[in-house]
Structures are given as structure tokens and as C-alpha cells.
């Protein structure tokens, strides 16, 4: 297995897990000092992705089964993955984040320069057209970036553009963005769907819903038909700037909400790709002929979220005790069937993740010792909220109830409707809460977004609604995001990871991968660490 180019050439289905473990192991040895290439080295792509460079075949329509569907196709619309992943096929951004990398590559901008003080970004635009044939102009780019920067319009992802000061058109091919403060992740933020480039005239002329039903972008695909509850039919954008891509004539994003049906549909050749394969069914799908299971790295963190404002969870010793009493490796083994990684960080794995920092060991005597230092040495009672009907959360909660009980923490489990979980978390009306395994995911392959959301109480999310407050972590987050030097960033993020683990605002359990089933005649299919799949690289044959 060649890990250097990030695209393994030798694989077998049965080896997939062990290879992933091996890759992570290899990263553990070499990752910390390299920083940048970490993600590249850790990525696994579709077995046949490496063959894409040989001879991609053209034509065909990909049938992709999802358990999500879009709510709207407007770049400034809802922030759910059902909508986001579909939008990313239709719209271009100035930069792109390719699967397996954390370094932005040219998108609508063919090149750019960053001023030495890190405050001025100058983008050279490529000559491109929207799917209606009209050219992508510097005015369109400015219009779109102004919307991205407008906190009134960009309500869901405004934190990605807070550093932006102004966008100016230097000439018809050049656009300059100035920042108020240095934001090391700014280029990555420009690759997120909210920074999509849209045609100014059409957007201004149409209502939000009209544009959402009939979106115009310059991306590899365009919308042919969207039947709510059934399918998003995409066809090749004939004006796409890269005349070689996409290879497919079209792609149907089919809404198949039932897990069993999705698996049976790909087995009976009704689908080419099935998203969200439950961990418990990986083994079964692997046994099906003509189908392989992709276990892709995802920047997702599965944790128990603790309300740090409530006694005795406001005490660091108590939170550490809960961490020591959490058998993460047993949970990874039984709940995730070994297909996840024990978490050694409060944040998901992105660039600058430090594999050298140890996770909390499962050690009940250390847990008791930590609890003994607190104001409740004999333990206490608390309620753990979890979503009903999800075996991952139910099994985790049962295990925690047992092991935490052994140090005197009496846990009451409270199952709620999944649609209630987010409001329970954000209303901060909970003591401890579990969320679905892949629901807390970074949108960018760098740690800045999640670090500010989870560990900087000044970012406006009360540290992901945990009420955690630490000047040490928020200073580290701001310093790390405020410098462009990769070496300094690596040092600061390593230190942040260490300090955050020690202060333990949450109980991190596992880094959860993205699991998909793909038919073997699908080539070039791979996902980014944000979980999406650029379909322009995919071909059938």
C-alpha cells in the first residue's frame, strides 16, 4: 500500500479497515511534524479513484441514494447536508477543496496572491460561463462575495466571513478582498457553499424560492428537475469551464430515507452509490457482489456534550472523571464495529490534528481519584439526553450509564425526538447530551471553524452551547487563526488540543468516518472531510 501519494493503489475489500488503521498509524508516526500533508496522507479514496487518470469514460447517469434531500438550492439557504451537497454540484466557488486535501485548489479563481500582512487577497478569475451561457463577470463575483460577507443575509454561516472588510473589482478579471483581521482559514472558508458565485442579474430579479427552484450556477452540473421527496435530477453543464469534466451526462440524487431499502436498492442495482450505511450493516454490504464499502475520513466528532454551567459539571475534576470513566475503545468496538477512531481531541480531525496527544484511558481508579478531588467525591445524579431510535446513541448511553455508575455518577437516560435534540442543546437546557454520530462535522479541512465554535466563548456559540469558558483556549484559538505561518499554527493547535483535552469541556468518544456503498463500476468517487462528493470526478465503466 502506497500512502505517499494519498491514493492507495493496492486494496482489497476485506483489508479496508486494517488499511485505514494502518494509514492512521502511519500518520501517527509522521503527521505531527508535517502538518500540512496530514490529511492527504490519511485519505482513502474509492478503490478505482486512482485509475481515473488512466482513461475516464464519458456518459451515463449516476444514481446516488441519500437519506437526505435538499430543502432549497439557494447558496444562502438552509445549512443542512441534504441541501449543501446538492448545491456543491451546481455552483462554483473561487477555490475548491478536493477530497483528501486541506489546501484549496483553483476553482473559479485560476490563481491568487496573498499580501505579506495576510490582509489582502487578489484573485485572478478564469473565463467561465454560467449554465445559462452568460459569462461569469467580476461584478457577479463581487456581488456573491458581498452577500457572503453580509451578516444579515448569511445568517447560518456568517462566522466564516466575519473577517471580511471589502471586495473591490480591480479589472474585469481581477477581484480583491481585504480583511479586517488576519484569518488563516479565509481561503478555505471561500470554498464553502455559502461563498458560491451566482449571477447577479438573475438573483436580483428573482425571489429566493424562484432561484432555488431554478438555480443558475457555473458548476459542473445544472438542475434539470427537482421532485420534492423523490429526486434531484442533475445534468452536465455544457458551459462548464473545464471542458474535460464532468464525465457523467447526469446524476440523479435519489431520496431513499430508509436504511434497509437503500442497501437493498444498491444490491439490486437500482443505485450506484448509497450514502449513510449504518455501522451495523457494513459487514453485510461487504458480502454483496459488485459493491464495495467506502470508509472515508470525515471531520466529525462524536462526544457527550456537557453543560459546564451546571453543578457539579462546572468543575474540571468532575469532567475529567467522566472522561476517565468512558470506555471509548469499547464503544468504538461494539457500537461502531471498529470503524471509528478513539478521539484524542475535543475537535474533529482536520489539518494540524496532533496524533501524539493521548486520549483519556479508560481507568476507573483514576476516575474515582479525580472525583475525590471535587465537591462531590461520592458521585452525583445527572440526566443524559439522547435521540430516540438511533442504535449508536442508545448503545453508547447504556454503556456510559453502566461505567459512570461505577464511580457513583447515577445517570438517567432521557430519549427525545431527534428533531428536538438541536433545540435542547442550543437552549442549554440539559446536563449531558448525545447527538447523532456524524452531526458535528467541520465544514472546512482546517481546525479554525470548530476551534472557535467549540473552544472560544467569544465566538458567540457559548462553546457549542456547553457554557465552557477558558481564556487559555480562546487565546490559543485567536492566536492560531491570526497567523498564516504553518509551523506556528501547528504548534498553537497542538497546544490547544492538549489544553482542551485537559480542561475537558466535553467527553470526546470517537472520530466517526463517512460510510458509503459504491458499485464497483463507479470510478473516481471520493468524499471530502466535510462529507461531500465532487461528482465531476466520477465516471462509470
Amino acid at each position, binding site marked *: 500500500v502506497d500512502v505517499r501519494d494519498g491514493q492507495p493503489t493496492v486494496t482489497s475489500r476485506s483489508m479496508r479497515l486494517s488499511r485505514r488503521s494502518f494509514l492512521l498509524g502511519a500518520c501517527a508516526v509522521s503527521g505531527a511534524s508535517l502538518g500540512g500533508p496530514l490529511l492527504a496522507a490519511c485519505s482513502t479514496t474509492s478503490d478505482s479513484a486512482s485509475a481515473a487518470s488512466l482513461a475516464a469514460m464519458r456518459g451515463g447517469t449516476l444514481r446516488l441514494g441519500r437519506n437526505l434531500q435538499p430543502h432549497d438550492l439557494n447558496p444562502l439557504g438552509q445549512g443542512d447536508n441534504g441541501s449543501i451537497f446538492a448545491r456543491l454540484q451546481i455552483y462554483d466557488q473561487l477555490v475548491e477543496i478536493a477530497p483528501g486535501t486541506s489546501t484549496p485548489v483553483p476553482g473559479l479563481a485560476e490563481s491568487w496572491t496573498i499580501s505579506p500582512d495576510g490582509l489582502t487577497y487578489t484573485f485572478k478569475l478564469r473565463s467561465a460561463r454560467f449554465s445559462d451561457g452568460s459569462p461569469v463577470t467580476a461584478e457577479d463575483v463581487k456581488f456573491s462575495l458581498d452577500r457572503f460577507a453580509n451578516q444579515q443575509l448569511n*445568517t447560518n454561516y456568517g462566522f466564516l466571513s466575519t473577517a471580511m472588510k471589502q471586495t473591490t473589482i480591480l479589472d474585469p478579471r481581477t477581484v480583491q478582498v481585504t480583511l479586517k483581521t488576519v484569518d488563516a482559514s479565509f481561503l478555505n472558508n471561500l470554498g464553502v457553499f455559502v461563498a458560491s458565485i451566482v449571477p447577479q442579474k438573475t438573483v436580483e430579479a428573482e425571489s429566493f424560492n424562484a432561484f432555488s427552484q431554478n438555480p443558475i450556477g457555473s458548476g459542473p452540473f445544472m438542475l434539470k428537475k427537482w421532485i420534492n421527496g423523490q429526486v434531484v435530477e442533475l445534468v452536465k453543464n455544457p458551459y462548464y469551464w473545464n471542458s474535460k469534466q464532468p464525465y457523467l451526462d447526469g446524476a440523479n440524487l435519489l431520496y431513499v*430515507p430508509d436504511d434497509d431499502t437503500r442497501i*437493498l436498492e444498491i444490491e439490486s442495482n*437500482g443505485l450506484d452509490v448509497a450514502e449513510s450505511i449504518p455501522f451495523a450493516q457494513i459487514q453485510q454490504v461487504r458480502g454483496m457482489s459488485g459493491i464495495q464499502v467506502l470508509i472515508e475520513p470525515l471531520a466529525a466528532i462524536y462526544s457527550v456534550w456537557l453543560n459546564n454551567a451546571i453543578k457539579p459539571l462546572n468543575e474540571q475534576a468532575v469532567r475529567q472523571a467522566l472522561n476517565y470513566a468512558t470506555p471509548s475503545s469499547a464503544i468504538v468496538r461494539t457500537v461502531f464495529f471498529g470503524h471509528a477512531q478513539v478521539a484524542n481531541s475535543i475537535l474533529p480531525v482536520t489539518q494540524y490534528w496532533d496524533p501524539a496527544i493521548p486520549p483519556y484511558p479508560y481507568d476507573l481508579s483514576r476516575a474515582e481519584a479525580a472525583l475525590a478531588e471535587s465537591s462531590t467525591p461520592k458521585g452525583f445524579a445527572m440526566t443524559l439526553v439522547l435521540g430516540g431510535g438511533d442504535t449508536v446513541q442508545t448503545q453508547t448511553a447504556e454503556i456510559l450509564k453502566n461505567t459512570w455508575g461505577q464511580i457513583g455518577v447515577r445517570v438517567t437516560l432521557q430519549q427525545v*425526538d431527534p428533531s428536538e435534540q438541536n433545540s435542547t442543546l442550543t437552549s442549554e437546557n440539559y446536563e449531558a447530551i448525545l447527538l447523532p454520530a456524524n452531526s458535528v462535522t467541520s465544514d472546512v479541512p482546517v481546525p479554525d471553524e470548530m476551534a472557535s465554535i467549540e473552544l472560544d466563548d467569544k465566538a458567540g456559540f457559548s462553546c457549542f452551547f456547553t457554557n465552557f469558558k477558558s481564556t487559555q483556549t480562546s487565546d490559543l484559538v485567536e492566536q492560531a487563526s491570526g497567523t498564516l505561518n504553518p509551523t506556528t499554527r501547528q504548534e498553537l493547535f497542538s497546544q490547544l488540543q492538549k489544553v482542551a483535552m485537559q480542561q475537558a469541556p466535553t467527553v470526546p468518544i470517537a472520530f466517526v468516518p463517512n460510510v458509503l456503498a459504491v458499485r464497483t463500476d463507479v470510478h473516481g468517487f471520493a468524499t471530502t472531510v466535510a462529507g461531500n462528493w465532487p461528482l465531476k470526478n466520477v465516471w462509470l465503466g
Partner: protein
Amino acid sequence: VAYYLLRRVGQAIPILIGLTVCSFLLIHLAPGDPARIILGLRATPSAIAAVRAQLHLNESLPAQYGGFLLGALHFNFGTSFQYHQSVGSLIAPRILPSILLVLYALVIGVVLALPLAVWSAMKAQRLPDHLIRVLTMVTFAMPAFWLGVLLILIFSVRLHLFPAGGYGLTFGSHLQSLVLPGIVLGLYLCPMLLRTLRSSLIESLRSEYVEAARARGYSEARIVWRHALRNSLISGLTVMGANIAFLLSGTVIVESVFSIPGLGSLLVSSVSDRDFPVVTALTLLFGVFVLIVNIITDVSYAFADPRVRLWRS
């Protein structure tokens, strides 16, 4: 006839209002903030507040309900919270798949139940009757989501006869996609229909006019199919009418299992999205549908049995 229908529709109005009040209260009182569901975990409190105001969620419940009722009188059910399009345009394309599915289930249920009921009644308390009883008990007890997956395994994965799910893009493929979900729902309807028909057939077969027909030397087949069955149909129709409501609730599960873009799957996703306008409008639509079916059932008695008079001539 017109007067009768008018009276029935008049009776239906308070029922429908009660129904919308109940569903409106239930979905509004359920925990879970639609604004938070729309904006996600990364939105700021001020953005949440703005969306709540935009959706009129800060108004009192009676004011919100009044707004809904006023709109409903003009056939305007508002705008979906989640999909930003009008509720009417969201629901309209979902009606046909559900109606086709219910029709499929009815046809399959009736086609299976009728001959089996006749056979059962003629061989009452003998082996075929017992066998049919056990068999229908088994199909009745099977949960729809389990039976659905089983049928997909056999007919789609092994035999490749029908698609495993979805609805297809042409009318022909719609019909093909609905076969398996239709069977699941039909098998659910069949036992109820069969048991009712069987017992009323047995009763008819013991009656005096059947004795008289037998005495005249009519064949047993003619007696059953032409005389006894017609008399037993009323109870069958009642059961069928009452069970249309059950079939509709069955579509909720079956449509989700088979990924059919019908009203049932829309209801499921709207409830979990806390999409209040869609949920209330769908409940109203289901209510109207059940009431219409009930009226049709009552009217059809008159055709099945000339002795039934719904109105004074």
C-alpha cells in the same frame, strides 16, 4: 340526493375544524423549534429570532390558528417553513402517488379477499377455512416495514421483477414501482375484509331464501355468487370504507420504506422538520379524504342493496 349530500357535508365541517385544531395544537406543543431546525446549529440567536418573527411563531396560538383558518378558507395554506414554497404546490404532486397506492391496495385486497372469503364460507370449519384463517392472521400480524423489506428481498434483489424502491419518472414506472408497496398494504386490508365477508356469507347461506334457492335446484355457485354474496357485500363495504383511513395511515410507513414521494412520506418528514403549515394542511387533507370516502361508502350501500334508502323519494 343533493339534500342528503349537503347535510353530510354540513356535518363534516365541525369535524374538520376539530381535526385541524387538534393537529395544530399537537404539532405546536411538540418540543423542537422550527427556526432552529431551519437554521441549524451554527446560527446566531439574533438570526433565530428573526426567523421566528418571519414565521409568525411569536404570535399567540389562537392568532396563529386564526391565520391558518383564514387562509384555508381561501385554499391558501401558507408557505412551508422548510421548503420555502407554498404548501399547496408542495402537496399537489404528492397526491397522485398516494391515491394510486391506496387504489392498488384496494384492488389487491379485494381480489384476494373475495374468492378466499367465498371458499372459506363454503368450507366453513373445515381444513381450507382453517388454513385461510391462519394464513391471513399471519399476513395481518406482519409489520409493514418488515414485510416490505422481505418483498424487496424476494422480488427485487433475487428475482429482479420490481424496483426495490422509488417511484420512477414515467407513468409506466410509477405503476411498476407501486406493485410491492400495494401488495404490502393490500395484505393488510385483505384479512379484515375476508373475515367480515366470510361471517356474513355464512349467515346468508343459512338463511331461508338460500334454502329456497337450493330447493329450486340452483347450483351452489349460482347461489353463492348471485344471491348470498350480494347480501353480504354491505358489511364488506362498511369494512372497506372504514379501512380506507387505515390504508392512509399505512401509507405513512409503506411510503417511507419504498421511498414513494406521496403524502405519507411528506407527513413523516414534515412532522420531524416541525413544518407546521404542511402538517396542518396534510391533516386537513387526510380528514377530507376520509370523510369523502365515508360518504361514498354510505351512498354505495344503496347500489349494493336496493332495500337501503338514504333519502325519501
